[in-house]
């Protein structure tokens, strides 16, 4: 196998491993659209990174976290529903990113690679970012696991038990931002949420425990990455979208499997 294929598999597999447990939380907390909004803002972060001469991943983290905080502040005012606010921020920040990118005339950026991913051009540096950032994110999630589950089940109960509910929610947003920053290269900012929610949604029917669902989501995500990449190489298809199509196909297959209850 060519080296670039191995790197692509390692990168995609690492992201899928991380996306399993985190995506499960996105599904449990009904935050799919929130994840979408954060990832759409990532392009603005990339541009910011170029402008300031820092790593685009850092720019993405900064913009995602700022957006998450802005959203929390806006939701306090309650004049508009959450999905309306998300729609405004999602498309506003994506368009702002595209406009800002167009201003950087001297810079030649492969826009398609950011929007839909460029998994076959993964570098060793990307791999290090994925596995380093992934290890940090998984460790953080493991440490907060029980309390995040408690907050997901009922915020009031968690508060009465003395849990720092707001801090836990913020920590969860930080984890999502981190995943977006490192997964951008693989499936692109328009498709990141699918990698979070499709494997987790596929795993739901077969799981009896939260951990079981998270683990199965990771396995299904890795399967989708392998299948999508092989299809992409065989038939010369775009990598990121092929992975997402494979994940969606697995979801359909899974929902056809009869369950005995």
């Amino acid at each position: 196998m060519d080296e670039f294929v191995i790197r692509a598999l390692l990168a995609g597999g690492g992201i899928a491993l991380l996306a399993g447990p985190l995506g499960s939380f996105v599904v449990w907390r009904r935050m799919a659209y929130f994840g979408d909004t954060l990832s759409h803002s990532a392009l603005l972060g990339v541009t910011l990174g170029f402008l300031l001469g820092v790593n685009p991943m850092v720019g993405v983290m900064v913009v995602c976290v700022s957006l998450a905080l802005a959203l929390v502040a806006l939701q306090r005012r309650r004049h508009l529903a959450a999905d309306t606010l998300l729609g405004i921020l999602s498309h506003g920040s994506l368009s702002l990113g595209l406009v800002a990118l167009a201003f950087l005339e001297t810079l030649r950026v492969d826009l398609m690679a950011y929007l839909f991913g460029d998994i076959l051009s993964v570098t060793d540096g990307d791999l290090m970012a994925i596995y380093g950032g992934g290890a940090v994110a998984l460790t953080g999630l493991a440490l907060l696991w029980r309390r995040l589950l408690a907050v997901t089940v009922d915020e009031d109960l968690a508060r009465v038990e003395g849990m720092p509910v707001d801090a836990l929610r913020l920590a969860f947003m930080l984890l999502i931002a981190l995943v977006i920053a490192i997964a951008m290269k693989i499936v692109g900012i328009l498709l990141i949420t699918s990698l979070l929610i499709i494997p987790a949604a596929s795993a739901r029917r077969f799981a009896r425990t939260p951990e079981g669902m998270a683990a199965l989501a990771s396995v299904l995500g890795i399967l989708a990455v392998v299948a999508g990449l092989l299809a992409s190489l065989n038939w010369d298809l775009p990598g990121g979208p092929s992975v997402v199509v494979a994940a969606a196909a697995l979801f359909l297959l899974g929902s056809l499997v009869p369950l005995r209850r």
Partner: protein
Amino acid sequence: MSTPHPSRDPSALFSGPLAWTEDLTVRFGSRAVLDRVNVAVQPGEVVTLIGPNGAGKTTLVRAVLGLVAPDGGRVLRRPNLRIGYMPQRLSVDQTLPLTVRRFLALWRPVTADRVAAALEEAGVTRLADSAVQTISGGEMQRVLLARALLGEPDLLVLDEPDQAVDVHGQAELFNRIAQVRQRRGCGVLLVSHDLHTVMARTDRVVCLNAHVCCSGRPEDVSRHPEYHALFGGHARDLAVYVHHHDHAHAEDGKVVHDHDGDCCHG
């Protein structure tokens, strides 16, 4: 994070109430939902809050729990007071696979033995491996009781457990809570729509309509005309009902004169 305390006794050093309010006022917008409310729960005492819809019962409970910030007055608790809260209802999203056993273990680090003992005490051992989404409202109430017991509460707080529970299940739940109180000596603060159900198991009733209308032993309160106004199906008449105590209600339910909040006692 509420780690279990090594000794149950720091609160035993104090002889006063477990939790109490001092002129607690909470406003939603310009409306005072709670108006200078003074309520206290003593150790081992069952206090029941009654009152019409919108009287502020839930708000008072939420303020005692620290979920609502006072706009005036104070909520006080004994140092290190452990509160076991049983919410009105709890529904867990279908997307989250969660058994009853696992649900109970989410709130603090607990051993499997302690979870089993709490399930036993609440009478729901057979539900341990059921998915939380599949159990009935009454069963969920008892699971919530088991959850509260795992925190070794000094004070048990229940909000209107009657809504999802049939009359029989409700009476049984209150029996269990009475047993828990006997065995553990904890105080109980509960919100109820129906005094009959809790009557025999309540030490003190507080009748609330934004302010404390009256409070006392259940037999006193049940003989009180206001109790009949509330529970004879005429709860709406409360605002214009003339109390034979030291205040009256304006048209919007506001109290016109000050009073000490204990007006039908003795």
